[in-house]
């Protein structure tokens, strides 16, 4: 007796599961940690990426070459590798006292996740910032030089603000990627959202409900971020034109 059914689900959805304790607690911690990891990584990789980009555009070899080597190494190795590396290998490389301090710290997995994602993301950010720096017209730099600003001041006050305005869209995209990549932290037992869904699945054998909620969460946040980026972009463009109008 074979019968053909459309959508023959071998699964009874029980939507009360995500709202039961302790599962709800895990999920809420997961959401908090996901935000924390994404936010800290974004800020750190912006800093690191900008410094790397400035180093890469520098004329001095001892600044230029290390930055280029770093980017070449990081860009060609998966982000997951860096997470595993920072969790399992990095503490062992440190001098004796630090190894133990890091290993005993309860939330070292979160720190390792942040470090790993930052290393991965900063290489990409530096690529983006570098194109931004190169896109700044020579005339502006010459103007800055002629007003008597030194090299640091030129970068800080003239070049970087102009560069950031042009690279806003790709930077936003990168940050959304980074937000999504925070889910990789489950590989190193950091209790973020994806880890929480898997934990619920492994205890109750009913993971689809929580996985669904998590997917909705990721999609919602990514799209909201994307839309905010579009708004910001539009605002900035108006800003740019008004600046040029003022000058002429």
């Amino acid at each position: 007796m074979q019968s053909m059914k459309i959508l023959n689900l071998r699964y009874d959805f029980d939507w009360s599961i995500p709202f039961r304790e302790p599962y709800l607690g895990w999920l809420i911690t997961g959401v908090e940690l996901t935000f924390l990891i994404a936010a800290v990584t974004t800020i750190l990789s912006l800093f690191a990426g900008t410094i790397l980009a400035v180093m890469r555009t520098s004329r001095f070899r001892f600044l230029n070459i290390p930055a280029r080597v770093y980017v070449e190494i990081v860009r060609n190795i998966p982000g997951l590798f860096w997470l595993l590396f920072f969790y399992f290998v990095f503490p062992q490389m440190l001098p004796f006292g630090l190894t133990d301090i890091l290993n005993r710290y309860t939330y070292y997995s979160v720190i390792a996740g942040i470090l790993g994602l930052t290393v991965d993301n900063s290489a990409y950010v530096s690529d983006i910032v570098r194109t931004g720096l190169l896109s700044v017209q020579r005339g502006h730099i010459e103007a800055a030089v002629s007003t008597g600003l030194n090299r640091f001041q030129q970068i800080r006050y003239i070049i970087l603000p102009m560069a950031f305005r042009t690279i806003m869209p790709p930077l936003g995209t990168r940050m959304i990627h980074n937000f999504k990549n925070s889910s990789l932290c489950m590989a190193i037992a950091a209790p973020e959202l994806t880890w929480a869904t898997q934990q619920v699945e492994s205890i109750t054998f009913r993971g689809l409900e929580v996985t669904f909620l998590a997917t909705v969460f990721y999609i919602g946040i990514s799209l909201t971020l994307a839309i905010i980026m579009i708004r910001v972009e539009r605002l900035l463009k108006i800003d740019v034109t008004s600046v040029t109008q003022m000058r002429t």
Partner: protein
Amino acid sequence: MKRSGVSVVVVTLLLACFISYAAAESLVDEVKKRGVVRVGHGNTTPPMNYIDEKGRWIGFDVELGEEIAKRLGVKIERVLVDNKTRVAFLANRSIDISLSNISVTNSRQEQMDYAEPPYFWTGKIFYAKKGKFKSLKDLGGKKIGVDQGSNAFIAAPQELAKYTNKKPEMLSFQNSAEGFLALKQGKIDAYSQDAPIMAAVAGSLGAEYEAVGGMIYSPGLYGIGVPENDSDWRDKISFIFQDMLKDGTYEKLYQKWFGPKGTFPMSVNSRPRLSNTYGDMLYVWPD
């Protein structure tokens, strides 16, 4: 017209994803018709199932599965499962047998059935550096690692609650080997897992570690998992396994892996058959 042809194909393809045949017959017939039995094994828990130095997929479970398929007279298709999917895949019938060090527990009973008898005796231990903890009481408030999907996540805090009021901090890893590495590096204070698995994972490093207090808690049984509500199939597997117990095939397999000359020699007897004592054949149903 051409474009509508393409879209018809696409729509059919999409629909095909959602159409499935609901099988009302028992797995006994289905497997025979298919000629293939799908057996789920993990690959991260030596000695039961793991990847060896040469990259082969071996272990006690794997060889047991092979033997069962041979006796069913069909080919074997090994499906990779992990601690999280070994039960879920049975429940949604992606596999016919789950042989992946599954402890028989009450909560799993709702999702699956077990063939009779269980094939391995075991117990969980708290594994920690030698001399670090004297008894389970010292483990209160410490960091305890478990496998994600292992019932130790529930059993370990329950056990510790008997001795101390301080709740342990639970961390769950993707597999025992990662957990043991974390234990070795001091990221967790103790790792809770079944004793034979822990011994095999630690390997030669095992000399530096011990079971806290020498205690085995939550003694358990590994069972051969079969899908729920298919008694024909369950009986078939049960009888095949009991035949293996009777004619000594199981004993040979056990000696190969856990005997004094085996790959992972074990001092404790983990067979379901208590040899040379009263009730020898207790776990095999009489004819």
